[in-house]
């Protein structure tokens, strides 16, 4: 099959919360050579249903296969590809930065600009929480790097389609 342009896709997958379901999803990607850029899983308000937000990269042929293969899993309830739809998405990061007395003010100022919050203060380090899309978090980390990042923990992307949507694009399972 022809190789088209590689594009980034945000997939939202509702799954039955049976044991091993994450392993089935991850195994599908590794076994068939598909990419996972990031992956987030948590329960929904519905009992025994979890939402997986998965970011992947591939051409249209690969993406069609990924979506079909995901749908084929017995535990998969529904799959949406948000790419091409209107949706909101967020990543979150916790960043521990070196907070020497002479750069504490600068850290706080940057945190303010990025609407980040200080969630832990120690004698040597501040821990900041920041949310936003991938680019925003990357930009924030770039600015903090010269000050000295000790460690970071990042989530992958989570996403939801916007309420107002072209009707055709909302029908998942395709």
């Amino acid at each position, binding site marked *: *099959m*022809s190789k088209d342009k590689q594009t980034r896709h945000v997939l939202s997958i509702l*799954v*039955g919360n049976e*044991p*091993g379901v994450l*392993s*089935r999803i991850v*195994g*599908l990607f590794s*076994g068939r050579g598909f990419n996972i850029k990031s992956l987030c899983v948590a329960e929904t308000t519905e009992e025994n249903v979890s939402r997986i937000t998965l970011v992947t990269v591939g051409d249209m*042929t690969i993406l*069609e*296969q990924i979506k*079909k*293969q995901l*749908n*084929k899993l*017995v*535990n*998969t*309830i529904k799959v949406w590809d948000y790419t091409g739809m209107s949706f909101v998405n967020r990543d979150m990061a916790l960043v521990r930065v070196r907070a020497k007395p002479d750069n504490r003010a600068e850290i706080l100022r940057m945190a303010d600009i990025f609407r980040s919050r200080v969630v832990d203060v120690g004698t040597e380090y501040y821990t900041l929480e920041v949310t936003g899309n991938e680019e925003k978090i990357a930009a924030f980390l770039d600015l903090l790097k010269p000050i000295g990042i000790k460690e970071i923990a990042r989530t992958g992307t989570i996403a939801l389609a916007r309420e107002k949507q072209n009707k055709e694009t909302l029908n998942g399972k395709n």
Partner: protein
Amino acid sequence: MTKKFNGAQILLKALQDEGVDTIFGYPGGAIIDIYHELVQTDINHILVRHEQGAVHAADGYARASGRTGVCLVTSGPGATNTVTGIATAYTDSIPVVILTGQVPTQMIGNDAFQEVDIVGITRPCTKHNYLVTRIEDLARTIREAFYIAGSGRPGPVLVDLPKDIMKQLAPYRPVGEISLKSYQPTYRPNIKQLQKVVGLIKKAKKPIIVSGGGVILSGASEELTKFVKTVYAPITSTLMGLGGFPTDHELWMGMIGMHGTYRANMSSADCDLLIAVGVRFDDRVTGKTESFASQAKIVHIDIDPTSIRKNVPVAIPVVGDCKTTLSLLNGLLEKEDFKDIRDAREPWVTRINEWKATKKLAYEQKDIIKPQYVIEKFYELTKGQAIITTEVGQNQMWAAQYYHFDRPNSFLTSGGLGSMGFGLPAAIGAQVACPDRVVADIAGDGSIQMNIQELATAVQFRLPIKLIILNNSYLGMVRQWQELFYGKRYACTDMQHAPDFMKLAEAYGAVGLKACHPDEVEGVLKKGLDTNETVIMEFVIEREEGVYPMVPAGAPITEMLLV
């Protein structure tokens, strides 16, 4: 008070509610409770000699009968021995339920004796699998396992059964009909897509039909035959689809693919419309995909959406069950006027008949036995009514080319995975499912040794299987590749050190017959067919006979070696 049963009893009741009459299995510590109860039921148990044999036998039972096959094995090595069998059934979409024993729930994860994470191991080669951790879930899990295995695109489902659950007590209530929110196979295709297909059929000048395993699995042979006759298009089949269409019909072209007929392969390159029914466009069928059916619009009918547009571009995808879809298509076609269709297609059919006349499947029987001759003779003597299983390699391809399959569920072969050692246990399963039919395993001297221990099973259960060993003292298919593409360096494919198959037959309590000369072939086959016991018929064949035509791997399927 409600009567309580132990887990083993509940399992067996649930199996009986599924209509299970036969289990292929092998006992062990983790399933001793199940065996303890099993012998109290009227379920027929076939004791195999290796767990791989149990799955292949259940698989053969399913392929021959259309019902779901069942096998039962113990934990640890018992479970891991089933993996090749499971992967074989998975690739060929065969409904099998595999019941594995597991160590008690409180010991799981402790690296206990004969513990293995079989659910983890088989996740990528089962349609679905389960570990039962509560006795309350047991009956429903069995119901779901059979439902999933047999519906949609069928496949193997494994259920792992911890030993303590088999001892616990609970009441039993039959589960009845179930529906799974997240699993809803599409049987009925979109009618708009079918109307587009009808439009293409009317316009096409050079259409062909390619039928596959989906036709056999959905029982669509009759609908397919009617469809082919109506649209008057030449038809070919994949290895898995053989038996789905009568081979004596004027529109039949023979098998397509790496060892397909000249006309089938050539027609795929030249056609303007290719209607694929229940196939998945395996690389052994398409050859180089870029040049496969490059002049044609492809219509792809399959129940599994992932099969469509996976390997080749498709103009009109139709997701649906083959039988339902063909029957709807036939309905739509009845309203169309196809009176002049024969005339319109005449040049195309003539072209194909010319290809047929110039390049036939052929061999010359001289002083040394030719394998093709053995198979053709066997076809004649059985009037094409036998169930044939095969091993994998040259024996498999010769069987596909020279035994002409006119009815479905009669050619049982490991098509997708290509598992040597499949044929003998599959023949056991088929003979158990169809006691009144002639069942034969067409084998090579190499592959028969991969599960030769099942000869004891066949003899124990008095199964009159005909074991046809085409003995060339080579791993013939690999040798053929070495001859053609690796400068005749026959690296490790010479198998001259094989057992004496006649003594082996005797040792196992089977009948042994041997032919070394062409004159003896018919006599041995007749005698073998008259024998009502397990019989080995060994034919010492031309050592370097090849399977032709042959398309080199990765080449377009029109580039055939025709030697």
